[in-house]
């Protein structure tokens, strides 16, 4: 990010705070807000915002296709589906909510432990020269998707089509 050793990594050549750093900070703030807010609707908005910031970061990283996918699918389509779901659910009472939170906490305590164990195993046993990351294989997302993973793009398109049918189904019901 910087060529001179004296300049901190988060500042650009003009000494101003780097845009990428700002985006990462915004991403962090938006995601923390998403998981910490008590209201589902705010959480959905936070998730949409997180996706939008991530899309901006992807555009800056010269991965416009990934940015478009992130913006259209995660920030737009998924948010719409979540808002619809929230609209048809009922609010829990305070007692129910705290009971549910305690239950969730009880069930999910092994997850960080599991993640830590998996991380340790991966880093201890990682292959030093992994051909996947070797030069010669493109790390550009556009090239990766269009030149090497076209079949997977067909899958993504089918997912989008299924999402479109779902939205049509829901609107048909709303008209009735």
């Amino acid at each position, binding site marked *: 990010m910087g060529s001179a050793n004296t300049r901190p990594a988060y500042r650009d050549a003009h000494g101003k705070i780097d845009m990428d750093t700002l985006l990462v900070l915004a991403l962090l703030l938006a995601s923390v807000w998403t998981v910490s807010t008590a209201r589902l609707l705010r959480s959905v908005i936070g998730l949409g915002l997180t996706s939008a910031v991530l899309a901006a970061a992807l555009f800056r990283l010269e991965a416009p296709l990934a940015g478009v996918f992130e913006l259209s699918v995660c920030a737009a389509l998924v948010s719409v589906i979540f808002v619809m779901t929230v609209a048809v659910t009922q609010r829990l009472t305070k007692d129910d909510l705290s009971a549910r939170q305690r239950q969730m906490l009880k069930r999910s305590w092994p997850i960080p432990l599991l993640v830590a164990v*998996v991380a340790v*195993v*991966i880093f201890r*046993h*990682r*292959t030093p020269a*992994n*051909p*996947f990351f070797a030069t010669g294989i493109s790390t550009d997302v556009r090239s990766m998707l269009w*030149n*090497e*993973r*076209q*079949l*997977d*793009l*067909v*899958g*993504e398109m*089918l*997912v989008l*089509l*299924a*999402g479109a*049918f*779902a939205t*049509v*189904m829901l609107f*048909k*019901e709303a008209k009735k």
Partner: protein
Amino acid sequence: MVSSLILAPIAVLVIVNLPALRWPKKLAYPSALFLFAAQTLLAVFSPKALIYAGETSFLSLKIRADALSVLSLASIGLVLFVVALSGRVFFRDRQVRPDFASLLLVALAGMNAAVLATDLFSLYVFIEVVAITSYLLIAFDKKSPAMAAAFQYLALSALATTLLLGGVAIAILSAGTTSLDGIYAASQRTGSSGLLTHLALALFGAGLLIKSGLVPFHGWLPAAYSKAPAPVSVLLAGIVTKISGVYMLFRVVLSAFGFQPWFREVLLLFGAISIVAGAVAAIGENDFKKMLAYSSISQVGYIVVGLGCATPIALAGAAFHFFNHAVFKALLFVNAASIENRASTTDMRELGGLSERMPFTGATCVVGLLSAAGIPPLAGFWSKLMILGGLWYAGYHGYAIVALGGSLLTLGYFLIMQKKVFFGKIKDGLGGLGEVGRTLCISQALLASVTIASGIFFPWVLQTLVLPIGTLMVK
């Protein structure tokens, strides 16, 4: 020709949903039926044409049909054909039918691509296509119980998805590629010392056990099967769970990670537990569709035990049971759908003596249950015999006895069902019922005929479709 199995449904899907035109929508149903029938006939009567086409480049990745893919393609085409037929009865609204046919086409494209893919990440992508289509189809009639079942399926499926994606990521770290051949080569190279390979297999395997609905990962399955609209229950029980769970287990073991000894033990153990637990739960169940759902858990247990046995004969038997279970379970769910269509309930306590009023449904139900219980000469007998024989000769006598006992339990709970629903005096309020219409009768007749024919013509089926699967073990 192989790539057309993926391209044709997508092309039809796009044409029938062109936004500016209305007339192509009318073609959605007949063209979907045509594609399903054509695929079944192609896979059954011309398997060598598909297999000899070899590995072909398709959209920058490789696709390939082997003997296992061909049997799966036949199952997919047949079950989707029956689902589309029965959908005509249950979704009478002409506005809704094209959406249903379109979702079936998305499912067809997703399942075909999953069956033909030779890349672990592509497998993951297309499993997701099938899963998303399934959520939508379960909730298709927008009734509350179906919505709840769809959400339950989505929640557990999301967990499975996370595990699968974790498995893919670790496979990349260990093998440096996502191609199945590359992962297989890396797992052979590292052998038992490749910890990351084992971790990838463990994560991928755990995700697929959830998708297969094996005990103790079966929580989502009874609700999803019983609360979904009747034709969707046929689809889920007949093929979706098998492709997104069981087929993928076959594929990752045969083509990517190999028969790792510890994973074989896991498959044998979970398979045997599922055979017994599914059968015991089915005995105590009063709802016809839920009973069939528990029966599915038990029958999938047989397939997984056959895979875990890892001998060519057991493997071929397991794959044949995969096909048989798709057919006879689809038949039994069409029977349940027929009863729901006429009596508006599937609660067996409210049913009785229906064979007087619905003789054709009663008779085809007998064919389905006898095949499920492994009674000769029906197809289920031969596949179970191959699995049992494979287990016995491989030295797994305990598992063979469990499988045999499970078959007796299967016969027991199905006879109880037949007695409660079809035999005895007709229950009050059911006297005015009649046989279901032509469309559902054709669906039943088709599936019953396939069950009987693949049992009677077993030597031909064995030589053409089943035995070549056993040879896949020799790589």
